[in-house]
């Protein structure tokens, strides 16, 4: 009899469960390909957490169009091929409705192709390469709420142009992001500070383990300022090797590290080894005192969510990525990618970092970044950027 009653219950459940599911509406599935291992995970992991926080918050309020959001994270391992593989798997096997994610500038454009093939909306929250939304690569389904290499390179050039220096050098990872941002920096610097000269350019491979020869080679050219786009763990390794070689002293800390070298993650990871005094940038900072009002509340929620007193600056990109999607779905009143894609054009959303508008012209949001000189602050066990300035990207966007 036991077996019989068990079967009856099972049968009853089988009848009930789908009814419940229909009652609430099927969840809206969002694929989230992101670097969750290796040096890039320092940024990818918190980006995922930010997306998860947004999803939990909106689901608690009843979801979007009465349906819950459901996040499906996948590890891209920082590899474009792997990003394509997991995105295809998400689109074809998992049948996700949308894709939000990717971190590097190699992954972003690669996944954009997958989105185009499968005709599903893809929002890139982190990759900056101009190529992602360049005229020849643009298609109806790709959008970006990250900054771009043009914005970032020009923002940095504007800062360096004010320094009392003549001989400028660059060091960047040799792949799409490093090349694009360095090109933007160099071209804009030549335009606004023609008295400066580019004396050296180093191109270590992405993920280089030993930067010492590059550091020595650069010092040999005697620059008095350096622009770097080594990001995440790459910057940490680089700075750890450069500091004892007297690199930062030689250029009198006239060093600007884009690629979020000033983010709390980077300064925290290095602790006492951080070359305090250099300039850096970041998407966000929990100590951002001149932030829009919503930011304080966001930071408090994030701090609780991550159980971290000094919450990550990368969470915001995952958060905004899914937020843009959710608001577009609301505006479209549908989860159909063609309708959501139209709704995203010109969409303005109120993010914790202030209002962002996704331009219809190139599907690009006007996302700028925070810049500042790093200093030691007695309040924190690691360096912070002070004063912190949000550089508005509008004037840099062609």
């Amino acid at each position, binding site marked *: 009899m036991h077996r019989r009653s068990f079967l009856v219950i099972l049968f009853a459940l089988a009848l009930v469960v789908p009814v419940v599911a229909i009652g609430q509406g099927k969840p809206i599935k969002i694929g989230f390909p992101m670097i969750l*291992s290796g040096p890039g995970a320092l940024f990818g992991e918190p980006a995922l957490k930010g997306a998860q926080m947004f999803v939990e918050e909106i689901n608690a309020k009843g979801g979007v169009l009465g349906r819950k959001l459901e996040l499906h994270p996948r590890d891209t391992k920082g590899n474009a091929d792997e990003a394509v593989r997991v995105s295809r798997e998400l689109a074809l096997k998992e049948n996700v409705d949308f894709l939000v994610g990717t971190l590097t500038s190699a992954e972003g454009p690669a996944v954009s192709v997958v989105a185009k093939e499968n005709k599903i909306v893809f929002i890139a929250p982190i990759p900056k390469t101009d190529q992602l939304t360049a005229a020849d690569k643009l298609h109806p389904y790709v959008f970006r709420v990250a900054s771009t290499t043009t914005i970032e390179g020009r923002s940095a050039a504007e800062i360096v142009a004010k320094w009392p220096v003549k001989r400028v050098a660059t060091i960047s990872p040799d792949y799409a992001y490093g090349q694009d941002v360095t090109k933007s920096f160099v071209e804009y610097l030549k335009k606004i500070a023609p008295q400066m000269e580019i004396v050296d350019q180093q191109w270590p491979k992405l993920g280089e383990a*030993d930067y*010492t020869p*590059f550091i020595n*080679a650069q010092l040999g050219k005697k620059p008095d300022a350096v622009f770097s786009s080594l990001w*995440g*763990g790459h910057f940490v390794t680089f700075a*750890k090797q450069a500091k004892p070689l007297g690199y930062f002293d030689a250029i009198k800390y006239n060093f600007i590290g884009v690629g979020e070298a000033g983010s709390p993650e980077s300064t925290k990871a290095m602790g006492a080894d951080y070359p305090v005094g250099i300039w850096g940038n970041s998407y966000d900072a929990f100590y951002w005192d001149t932030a829009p009002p919503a930011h304080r509340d966001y930071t408090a929620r994030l701090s609780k969510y991550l159980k971290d007193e000094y919450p990550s600056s990368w969470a915001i990109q995952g958060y905004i990525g899914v937020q843009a999607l959710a608001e577009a779905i609301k505006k479209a009143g549908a989860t159909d990618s063609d309708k959501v894609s139209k709704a995203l054009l010109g969409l303005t959303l109120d993010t914790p970092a202030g209002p962002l508008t996704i331009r219809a012209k190139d599907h690009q949001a006007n996302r700028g970044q925070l810049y500042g000189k790093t200093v030691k602050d007695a309040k924190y066990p690691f360096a912070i950027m002070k004063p912190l300035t949000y550089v508005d990207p509008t004037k840099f966007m062609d």
Partner: protein
Amino acid sequence: MPDLSFLFGQALSGLTAAMFLFLIASGLSLIFGVLRVLNFAHGSFYMLGAYIAYQFVRWFATTPGRFWIATVAAALGVALLGAVVERVLLRHLYGREELYQLLFTYALVLILSDAAKVIWGTGQLSVSRPPALEGAVRIFGTKVPYYNLFILLLGPAIALVFWLVLHRTRAGRFIRAAALDREMLGALGVNVSLLYTGVFMLGSFLAGLGGALVTPVKTIVPGMDVEIIVEAFIVVVIGGLGSFWGTFLGALIYGQVLSFGILVFPRFSIFSVFALMAVVLILRPWGLLGRPLQT
């Protein structure tokens, strides 16, 4: 023409890189020379050494000399792991086709890298230089960190000790004999099985030591295992698999080619090393100081 102090700095940086590579590659070469097993997991042992060192530095955060405690703990810990792997697992694969051994050690790579991710997460970890070696000294106008100097001295010292053990002790004689003819050695009453465990432990010890010593210079991340094993393979291929001085020479050449390669081909630094390996493989397939395999 770049000035001399710059060339000196470049040469020194190549030398430092070479000493690290030698530490790792010599263990790989030793294990191959005696056990005839190409241990893919050697890089994983190196990675574990780094993680264990990090763990000990954390545990002994307030103890002076924590870095050295951590280094010794990492080297011994990895040696112990090596012993377990050899006695419990690898043992059953001697005499089988090389492919099985290769597959086994490759499986170890995957298992250990996932284990490390479970224990230490996927983030990057960092260890500071030991306080005593924090500063730098100026030599010929180039700033040389004390820690790098220490590595530059340690490398040859270990090479020397290693050589003395191999050539001046009884155990060393057995090891060399085992490399030449293990059956004969066994027939003469030497406990070859124990010898194998010892050699595998010694090789693992060197990998763990290298992993621990590299932590103040590099960041500890998943993936460092595969990166180093490729470099170590290049070194032993250039120098000659199983040849002790060949490994030393291979590491020296690798370091210098990489250092000066970036001056000649700034954007193709890694290319010069692979090109060198290709040339060596064509001209001397058994490596610079290796011996051709007897058939």
